[in-house]
């Protein structure tokens, strides 16, 4: 029944010329390469990755997917992204373990209920399933939820988003690499981009640790390191690189059937198909390129989780890890191209929203790079919006009220 496992993607020769070069073998880079080859016939594409593919946040996230963002500019992109999973599994012939268990985001004050009411209304207006629940309905959904009055932040109600859930993050990395490689994309690991050559306002080449590559199109998809790649062409970005941590408990009998999150407790959790409770949200609010973990956070997470789900008292954490997030002031990404350098594109600033959006964004960024024209759905994300003071307002939800994932 099972055949021996072969390599998922091919070792490719290192060429000195490509039609497009992608900096970063994360999900955004791999997805863009895949769609460049698949939808636009751009076959000579190289993905350059300084470590191994999935080394960055692609392999460290908690894999939560949802489409109930806050603003009308963001919702359509995430909505299409969420609808793509079943089709993508089929198309890539890979089990991405899409589990649409639904996400419940809790509110712990009247103000939070007000904020969620607005968020639910925006989602419904744009055709995304989302509804407001009172605390009893939250309890019906998650019987182990503590809705008593004597906790730090008593539960007032919640926002329930039935179509969201989780996807296996590593599987998506492997599937996209396999799909891209089968279409002729070259994936070069252990290859660091060290410079980008620009002549008369247009990209001409990329310098790497393995030599020069001539190309007229480059995508900065370096995730948390995108600010450093951007500095190579003297473009400063409104990004803070902040460290985030996540952890898992020992496996338990199935008891938590939805993704649960709380802005006030600064915590979210879901139970994986293996039974582990995957939980995260702690972001250290200082610039860091180190992926440390801290005792401070383990304590915080234990306190938050056991107040919300008292049945977890005494359960052990098994693993903890850290990753980085490229945070923008409005919690929306920066997707731009040919401004001011012809042939230089960027897709970065995803913060902690870049997993759920990777496939759909790759699809549209590929269109952007193939045609030179920015697809309508990506137009709100230009870098110039900061100068024009047109920030996208996603920030208004997560810190106090939103899902943190």
């Amino acid at each position, binding site marked *: 029944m099972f055949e021996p496992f072969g390599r998922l993607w091919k070792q490719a020769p290192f060429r000195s010329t490509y039609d497009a070069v992608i900096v970063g073998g994360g999900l955004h880079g791999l997805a863009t390469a895949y769609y460049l080859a698949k939808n636009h016939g751009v076959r000579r594409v190289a993905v350059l990755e300084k470590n191994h593919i999935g080394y960055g946040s692609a392999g460290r996230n908690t894999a939560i997917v949802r489409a109930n963002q806050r603003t009308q500019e963001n919702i359509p992109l995430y909505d299409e992204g969420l609808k793509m999973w079943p089709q993508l599994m089929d198309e890539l012939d890979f089990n991405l373990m899409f589990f649409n268990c639904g996400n419940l985001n809790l509110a712990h004050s009247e103000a939070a209920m007000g904020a969620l009411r607005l968020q639910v209304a925006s989602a419904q207006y744009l055709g995304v399933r989302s509804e407001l629940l009172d605390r009893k309905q939250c309890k019906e959904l998650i019987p182990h939820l503590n809705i008593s009055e004597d906790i730090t932040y008593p539960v007032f109600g919640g926002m329930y988003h039935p179509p969201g859930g989780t996807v296996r993050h590593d599987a998506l990395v492997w599937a996209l690499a396999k799909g891209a490689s089968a279409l002729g994309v070259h994936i070069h690991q252990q290859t660091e981009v060290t410079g980008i050559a620009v002549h008369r306002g247009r990209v001409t080449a990329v310098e790497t640790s393995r030599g020069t590559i001539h190309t007229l199109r480059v995508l900065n998809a370096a995730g948390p390191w995108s600010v450093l790649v951007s500095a190579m062409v003297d473009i400063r970005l409104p990004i803070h690189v902040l460290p985030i941590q996540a952890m898992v408990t020992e496996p338990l009998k199935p008891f938590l059937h939805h993704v649960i999150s709380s802005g006030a407790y600064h915590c979210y959790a879901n139970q994986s198909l293996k039974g582990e409770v995957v939980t995260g949200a702690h972001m250290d609010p200082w610039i860091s390129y*180190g992926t440390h973990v801290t005792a401070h956070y383990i304590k915080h997470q234990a306190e938050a989780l056991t107040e919300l789900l008292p049945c977890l008292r005494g359960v052990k954490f098994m693993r903890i890890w850290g990753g980085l997030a490229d945070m923008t002031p409005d919690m929306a990404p920066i997707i731009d191209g040919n401004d001011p350098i012809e042939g230089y594109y960027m897709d970065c600033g995803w913060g902690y929203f870049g997993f759920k959006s990777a496939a759909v964004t790759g699809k549209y960024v590929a269109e952007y790079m193939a045609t030179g024209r920015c697809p309508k759905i990506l137009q709100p994300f230009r870098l110039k919006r900061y100068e024009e003071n047109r920030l996208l307002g996603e920030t208004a939800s997560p810190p106090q009220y939103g899902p943190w994932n």
Partner: protein
Amino acid sequence: MSFTITCPICGKRDLYEFRFGGEERGARPDYENLTPQNWCDYVHLRTNRPGPQREWWFHRDGCGRWFTVWRDPMTNRETASSEATR
């Protein structure tokens, strides 16, 4: 792992007692020459230096003082300013 910051008043303390105030980015542009570009530059754009940089910190759970230190975001450790200029 524990990180520390040295407050000029209270000395070396656990980093979680402090609030990060961002990288030092020079004086606020003066009102006369204000353009959308230099205002955006000051308010939003950042360097995120992968090496020692001067940063603002606030001793939130302590004496309440704002001050600057040199710190390296690669290691999350304070450094001497002389090391930073090397």
